């Protein structure tokens, strides 16, 4: 698992790859904490390269969403594989977090 990020206009795009489970959820949380700290308005989490996320990983996404909401920043996730999207649907988190099909679509919404 690795988290990298870059600026795209006003938004930070963070990419996470591999598996996020109980063993590395803390590392993922620290990666996102750095992104949240640097952010100024909007964060997009691109999950295109994410192969698996456990409930411990979902909790980290949820924490990020809460933190950003408190900051008054926007937050969205994009490019979920079918199985990851299923995890968000089953847990009901698709009703909590904005989900977009592609990075372009998400950035248009976040930067617009």
């Amino acid at each position, binding site marked *: 698992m690795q988290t990298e990020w870059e600026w795209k206009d006003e938004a930070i795009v963070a990419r996470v790859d591999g598996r996020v*489970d109980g063993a590395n959820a803390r590392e993922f949380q620290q990666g996102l904490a750095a992104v949240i700290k640097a952010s100024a308005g909007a964060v997009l989490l691109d999950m295109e390269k994410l192969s698996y996320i456990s409930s411990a990983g979902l909790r980290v996404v949820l924490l990020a969403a809460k933190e950003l909401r408190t900051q008054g920043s926007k937050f969205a996730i994009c490019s979920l594989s079918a199985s990851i999207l299923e995890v968000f649907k089953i847990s009901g988190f698709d009703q909590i977090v904005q989900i977009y099909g592609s990075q372009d679509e998400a950035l248009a919404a976040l930067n617009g």
Partner: protein
Amino acid sequence: MEDRPYKILVVDDEPDLQPLVLQRMRRNIRAGRYTFVFAGNGVEAIEQLNADRSIDMVLSDINMPRMDGLTLLEQIPKVDPNIRSVIISAYGDMRNIRTAMNRGAFDFVTKPLDFKDLQVTIDRTLRHMAEWRDALTARDKLIALQNELDIASNMQKSILPTTFPVSPAYGVSAHMEPARNVGGDFYDVIALQGGRLGLAVADVSDKGVPAALFMMSSRTLLKGAAIGRNNPGEALGEVNDLLIENNETAMFVTVIYAVYDPETGTFTYANGGHNTPLVVHPDGSSTELPLTRGVALGVMPGIEYQQNTITLEPGDTVLLYTDGVTEAMNSGNEEFGMERLRQIFADKPPQGPEEAHRDVFQAVHAFAGAVPQSDDITCLTLRHAGA
């Protein structure tokens, strides 16, 4: 490495050694790397070690009055087993060197002392000791962590019912297998008014003692809500609102909660972000129950949980389970998945509630093989016999 200089106790009855050591090691002493203290024999050395707990290492001669160096080696661990000793022996005195090493000396130097060699030996000994201390600290941390996980594991086990109501109209059974790193699955079977049953399977995010505490309160709140409300959707809504108070850590729990009425065979369920139940029919075919689009509990206040009712046919078996079943991995990094779960019963329709979950665990174990279990696995089964 520690900030203070290492303290080395030099033990020798030769009075000349003290000024010689201080003179030849003066650079290291001035640089704050070592300090030296001195004793004239083994007895004095033990007194000093007892009086000064900051001594890291002992450098000792062998032949001394009152207590010799070999006897001293046996005494040092009684004061502190983490002190390392280096012996000064006569050149070629293999017999004493071997005895010293057998008694726990870390290394030896020979007379006449070569101070360059002595310094290399001291440095190596101190480096070894620093690593040893780090390893001890790591071990202590690991033990503390293991204790925490044991507490969590015991909390988890203590709340799971192991006996289940018996009735000619139905059979119910459940089993949970914890992962090595405690997750936070639980199940419950709650007797309700009018002979009805409340059935719950839940999975708490994260692990360890905080997750176990969250699980305990989830389970208690759910039991209370189950008894107080007839309606599974309302029960989940109530538990959700209660869990959200003071949940700073964003922990959450996915829950499937159902009320079963043996008289009518109705099975009403509400889902808080959990895997949907599977109904297995007597011929081995199965139906996944529709999701009711509920959010995991503890995430957002004021959620209304939808519920759905089905009517079980005689011989139907309902399977409530956690993602430990469907997300169990094999050595090829594949997930067990829903299809394999359904296939178990297509090959062999469930004979009874206990047999049904036993078959699930067997199939998951066979699939995972030697891959360690990363999540708790829970399975609750209800077989409706019908009137």
